[in-house]
């Protein structure tokens, strides 16, 4: 390992990551650098592997080859000079993963806890903060997503958009350096996506490092500083939005964007 953790280095480095489910290889040797303090959007057609890539970065899926460095530290596997991979022990995985927060498509809030309970859970159980301090921090996060007046509500009593904002607050509570979003608005009614995207936009303006798998091409083009277009498990295009979306456009991207004509991406096409 020659990579050294420096505050100026990339937030995440993905090196030669492949993922195979049985006979199906869904990622073929992905290389990607995620810069600090900016938003990277992973876009691409369904089945292109963008969610799998994000889940590999979070180590929710174990890549079958390659390594992932978070802040310079290997997550899950290290690669020796001879290319042999070793699986790291669970405490190391937990330590490196503590730098990452994740927001899921299905929110995944714990239904038996209130909004505040969801946000405070890790502060209490993992960080072992006293109740009062944990709740103060939890309320601060709920305020950030505009839901301090819903603290005592259970997830089932909240709209989808509110649930996703609570999930963002939960991910923020541990003050991660990087936030991962896996299609955060895909299970929301169209009229509820705005409130979630606004929260994400505000986080981006605050300089949060974010990786967003999204079908919201408009969001990707305006908030993303870095776009990676995946197709059939490969990064086909990788660069700033002007470059990726600008002319001359890659035919696969053109084809992909056409399916979004009726989804508010018309201005781009």
């Amino acid at each position, binding site marked *: 390992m020659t990579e050294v953790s420096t505050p100026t280095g990339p937030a995440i480095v993905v090196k030669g990551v492949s993922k195979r489910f049985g006979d199906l290889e869904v990622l073929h040797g992905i290389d990607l650098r995620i810069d600090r303090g900016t938003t990277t959007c992973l876009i691409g057609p369904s089945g292109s592997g963008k969610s799998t890539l994000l889940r590999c970065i979070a180590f929710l899926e174990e890549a079958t080859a390659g390594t992932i460095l978070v802040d310079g530290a290997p997550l899950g596997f290290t690669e020796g000079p001879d290319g042999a991979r070793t699986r790291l022990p669970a405490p190391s995985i*937990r330590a490196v993963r503590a730098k990452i927060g994740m927001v899921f498509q299905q929110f*995944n809030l714990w*239904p*038996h806890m209130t909004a505040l309970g969801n946000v405070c859970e*890790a502060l209490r159980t993992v960080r072992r903060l006293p109740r009062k301090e944990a709740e103060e921090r939890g309320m601060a996060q709920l305020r950030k997503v505009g839901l301090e007046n819903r603290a005592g509500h259970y997830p*089932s009593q909240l709209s989808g958009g509110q649930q996703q904002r609570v999930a963002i607050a*939960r991910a923020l509570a*541990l003050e991660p350096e990087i936030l991962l979003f896996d299609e955060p608005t895909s299970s929301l009614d169209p009229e509820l996506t705005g409130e979630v995207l606004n929260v994400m936009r505000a986080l981006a303006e605050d300089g949060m490092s974010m990786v967003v798998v999204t079908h919201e091409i408009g969001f990707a083009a305006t908030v993303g500083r870095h776009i990676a277009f995946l197709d059939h498990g490969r990064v086909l295009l990788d660069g700033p939005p002007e470059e990726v979306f600008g002319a001359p456009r890659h035919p696969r991207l053109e084809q992909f964007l056409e399916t979004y004509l009726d989804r508010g991406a018309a201005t781009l096409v």
Partner: protein
Amino acid sequence: MTPRLFELMLWAAGATVLISAVSILIGLAIGFLVCAARVSRTRWLSTPAAVFVSFFRGVPLLVQLLLIYNLLPGFGLYVPSVVAAIAGLSLCTAAYQAENLRGGFMSVPKGLLEAADMVGLSPWQQMRRIRAPIALRLTLPALINEAILILKASSLISVVGVVELTRMAQNLAASTYRPLLFYSVAGGLYLVINWLVAGGGSLAERMLKKERA
């Protein structure tokens, strides 16, 4: 029926409730362990657990009680008959509760545990804070059902010499020659107890509704 005799019936009903409640709680604890063993990937844990479940679900409780009662002295264990009765009821209900819990645990959405992984909860913390509470909520109706079944099945423990509601009714019916009266009172008391259990169950479910609604 004299007040004195009714008092005896009430005392016996109390014994029924106490023995059943203790058995259900012990059964829940054993059920948790059996369920954990049953879903384990280690064969030498999951196989005995599966055997345990199929034995205690497959052999009539009456036979189990008689087996335990007559087997224990063979191992040099001379325990009061009430202990043998509680052991029998607990083991029997544990088998059913293990299966209920297994269903509950399998119904906990995987995403909830991924979210817990991402905020750093250890496997044990996930069990304690996320999986067990949700599985218990999902199995609450089945647990209430099981409690009622055990309350009724506890009438069988009279065969190992424990005086509970059914046995007391038998004794008093025999000594007063008024079987109809005492069996009616016993039946009525069982009914009231089970109404209370069912009522407590729906109350708990209503309180949890707020989470699900």
